């Protein structure tokens, strides 16, 4: 009975999350003149073993959301609850045991892995930091084990990062993230720097690892086709807010928010015959500055369906049933 409750309880709850960055001005005495509301009221829950895709264009706050969950940024408002524990105001010491359980995979493994360290040391480093395996031999064995787990040969452990291809480097990045046996991985654009033939290898790796290790993912990406492939549910963000969230089938088949519809229409399908028949509806304009988001609905400046109410009233997320939530006056 108890076990069933634990399994059903969400691993991650994000409630009305706000991350605002101050904009400072002045030469000698700096004072805050404005703030960039990078994330401004984001809420979602994530079950164990589930994958949530976070999509949106640059500046929508998807990466910031990921960093805030890991508490790598200060949270301005709202709550982050990890496995029943409110970690919003945890200090560094309190975060330490939590950090083992949530890890990050970055976009560019070459930028996030020290080129002067051997692969074995790169993977063992977090184990030293968190003091989980006391001696070198044990850590080294574990590192080799992890390499095998991500599809590399254990004997590659003594090489340096420049000796690897982009896809292999990303595998090493994943192995390092897995060193602490985390439960939650925040993956920030983990395949977007890779060539398409390599992307599929890494996407499959993420799916295999989820199966064998029961991992939970927040998968931040701008590629809607990749996100559709890997996610159970998807949240679409625009200027710091979630405009629509739904399971993947619903979101891609029946998108309700005009922005979701515009995003999906903009992605070409690799088939000339299908493309020739698709209506070409291009949404106009570009994402406005996050420094001065439009009043009312943030999308109204580009929305084909905007009316007067959209210019003044910010729509709240409404439940349309079946777990589909949309923030639009006209959906």
């Amino acid at each position: 009975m108890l076990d069933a409750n634990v399994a059903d309880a969400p691993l991650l709850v994000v409630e009305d999350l706000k991350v605002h960055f101050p904009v400072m001005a002045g030469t000698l005495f700096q004072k805050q003149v404005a703030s960039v509301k990078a994330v401004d009221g984001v809420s979602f829950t994530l079950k164990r073993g589930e994958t949530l895709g976070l999509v949106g264009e640059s500046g929508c706050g998807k990466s910031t959301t990921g960093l805030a969950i890991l508490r790598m940024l200060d949270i301005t408002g709202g709550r982050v609850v990890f496995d029943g524990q409110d970690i919003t105001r945890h200090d560094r010491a309190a975060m330490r045991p939590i950090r083992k359980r949530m890890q990050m995979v970055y976009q560019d493994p070459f930028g996030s892995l020290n080129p002067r360290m051997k692969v074995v040391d790169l993977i063992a480093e977090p184990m030293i930091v968190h003091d989980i395996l006391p001696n070198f031999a044990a850590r080294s064995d574990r590192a080799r084990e992890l390499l095998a787990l991500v599809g590399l040969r254990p004997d590659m452990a003594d090489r340096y990062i420049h000796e690897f291809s982009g896809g292999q480097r990303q595998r090493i990045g994943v192995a390092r993230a897995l060193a602490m046996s985390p439960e939650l991985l925040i993956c920030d654009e983990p395949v977007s720097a890779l060539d398409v033939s390599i992307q599929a290898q890494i996407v499959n790796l993420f799916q295999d690892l989820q199966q064998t290790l029961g991992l939970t993912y927040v998968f931040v990406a701008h590629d809607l086709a990749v996100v559709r492939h890997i996610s159970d549910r998807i949240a679409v963000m625009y200027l710091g807010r979630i405009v629509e969230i739904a399971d993947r089938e619903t979101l891609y088949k029946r998108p309700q928010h005009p922005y979701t519809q515009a995003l999906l229409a903009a992605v070409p399908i690799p088939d000339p015959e299908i493309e020739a028949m698709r209506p070409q509806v291009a949404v106009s304009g570009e994402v406005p500055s996050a420094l001065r988001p439009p009043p009312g609905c943030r999308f109204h400046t580009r929305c084909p369906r905007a009316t007067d109410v959209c210019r003044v009233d910010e729509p709240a997320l409404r439940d349309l049933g079946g777990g589909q939530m949309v923030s639009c006056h006209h959906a």
Partner: protein
Amino acid sequence: MAKLLEVRNLTTRFRTERGAVMAVDDVSFEVDAGETLAIVGESGSGKSVTALSLMRLIPNPPGEIVAGSILFEGQDLLKLSDAEMQAVRGDRIAMIFQEPMTSLNPSLTVGLQVGEPVQLHRGASWKAAFAKAGELLSRVRIPDAKARVEAYPHQFSGGMRQRAMIAMALACQPKLIIADEPTTALDVTVQSQILSLLKELTRETGAALILITHDLGVVARYADRVSVMYAGRVVETGTAREIYKKPQHPYTRGLMACVPRLDGALGDRLVPIEGSPPDLTRLPPGCAFAPRCSVAQPGCLTARPVLEDVGGGHRKACFVAVDSGVPVHA
């Protein structure tokens, strides 16, 4: 009718510390007036070096075009003097680069740069060129274009900068526009705006377009014909419909199978191409794709296949017969 552009056996070599690299190796293709040819490939496939070679913008040293011909309107561009080539660039052939911020001069106004080709190639006064820039910017639908000519590139958004680059490319009504990953740095909604605009303007002016990209979706939406490159060579070429419906080369088939699609079946595993692209300094003696190829025969490791017609102008460079015309991603 003669082709607008005929590239024959183009070979561009780079000298590197680890030996000579044939970045473009015996590449041939042609472009008709008004059509869009997509050159598709992954990093290191030679697609961008092909574009730079056409414009004769290969830095020498370390690079050098060592063989082939580039017949443009019947004239071999490789036989022109530097000054003669200068007169072709930006006039009859224009190029659009991936990063508009690095190809625009940050210290000059947008109007000055967009109008510059008119001043250079048509002998217009700076004042007339500046006025022309205003027209061009409104043609690429930059709002309030007449006033924006005074703006500097940093005052433009990424999408607007790329529009300005397109305006500059159109300035002298070129016969051919080469766009090298023009939207890779842009968000997806802006990408579709820019590419649709580019396509529409080339249709209006009758210019041909060479679109260099790694995105198979973009190719499907905008290209008439496709050349697929791998390790410096064209491995397959044909009309877009043919290539997508009946991909013949195992690499092309692999690419199409490994890309997730918005309309793909849910729950299917992706079928990746195993291994990674080859090191160009140590290419295998046979087919460069053979080490990753699932249908490779012993012969593929020793001999290099050349492009051969499989019907209707569709050509592939592969020894292995394809069992049928069934698309991989059925």
